[in-house]
């Protein structure tokens, strides 16, 4: 899981990362169902973390499926028009 693995601010160049806005997340666990290795539910709120290169598609799926649009995927070179 991703416990404690969230990138710390200022840690320099980071690869793709998913972050969850705790003010929006309703704990539906939709992301956990789609990508259990990228997300974790703690006290009813999802937490993200770094995304391995081969999991970027899954991360994007989670972004698209989130019912409250609480997830952001940053640090990819993906064409933003593709999602």
């Amino acid at each position, binding site marked *: 899981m991703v416990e404690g693995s969230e990138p710390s601010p200022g840690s320099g160049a980071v690869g793709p990362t998913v972050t969850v806005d*705790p*003010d*929006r*997340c*309703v*704990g*539906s*666990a*939709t992301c*956990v*169902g*789609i990508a259990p290795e990228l997300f974790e*539910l703690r*006290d*009813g709120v999802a937490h993200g973390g770094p995304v391995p290169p081969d999991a970027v598609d899954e991360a994007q799926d989670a972004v698209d*499926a989130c*019912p*409250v*649009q609480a997830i952001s995927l940053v640090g990819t070179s993906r064409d933003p028009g593709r999602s």
Partner: protein
Amino acid sequence: MATITDETAYTSPGIQAEPFAHFNRLREEAPIHWNERHRAWVLTRFADVRQWLRDPRMSVDRVRPYFEKRVPATQKDELRATFELLARWLPFLDPPRHTDLRGVIQNAFTPKVIRSQHEQIKEVVDEVLDDTVSRIREVGTLDLVPELAQRIPAQVMTRMLHLDGDDYERIHEWTEGLGLFIAGAVDEPDRNARIHDGVSQMASYVDRVITLSGDDPESDIIASLLAAEDGGTRLTRDEVIATGVLLVFAGYRTTASSIANALRLVIERRGVRDALAREPELVPSAVEEFMRFEGHSRVLVRWASEDLEVAGQPISAGDRVFFLTAAANRDPRQFEEPDQLILDRAPNPHLGFGYGIHYCLGAPLARVEQQETIQAFVQRFPPVEVATNGISWEAVVTNRALERLVVTTTSGG
């Protein structure tokens, strides 16, 4: 594969009283079967339910097909406006319009907004509970469905929407007819006429509320809907009316059922009440477990928008699919000891609020209402037990909803 057929009506008294033995058996026999009585495919296992609930080929747009096929030609003119209003509801909209509207409406229900309302909600709960406690001390017996489970969400909703508290009785009446349609009370006579009456009265009521509403989106949901904008999308007045009716309906009926089901578990299982009174920090996880174990929603309905193969079963475009969350929430492939009520179960990815893009928008509010109600109840309500024949269930397809929960004080109370 051979198709299994179930002839059971979910509205039958036996299934109402104790559905889980039957649902568990269906889930263990096959991941999908046909229910002849309800003319629907039924998906029973957690992994399949979760996978297909987020598949865009499973449509929720059931209002228009119902209107076209099931409403008699002679009633179409009378009922058209009602069905057009329902067709604007988020739970019956597919993307892309669903995506646009949800983005706007959910801004009124984020956990942050609900946190800011927490004290107000707690006030309502305390007020209603104090009143109920003094009444049961007086008369010794009370039906907790209308007196507690329904009053709390109704009062919360009327306050959040700045409605007149005395309108509660009317809201109760209006939502009843609509509940019949939403939850599938298939045997109810005059169903269409009752839906129409309830919806049109609620719509004109919400229309008046819009006219009277303040202009402070921070403290006023209706004002925030009128003002809301998300990526350039705004709600039309018709959409605000439809959404207002949805909020009154969903914020009241479904929360009331969840609270009633939770209260019953707390009352019938003395150990549960004692544990929660002793350890209040268990209440949040207990509420999630109540939703898994006896959530108000037992079936979510979708339509296949094209020919599909679901859990090995070919199904056709237009077929109706029941997602039997009541079975999936007790799937041993996902939950350890699924038929045990475990107050500190973690993780608990239950499907009691749905899954995917139609996940309950009001979940953060419903959670706070349930938590505060259960907390106050175990701390302050006198010891009670369920009265003889004190329980009955609404004869509806999709929900597990108590009609009555009559309790009496026990000695020492």
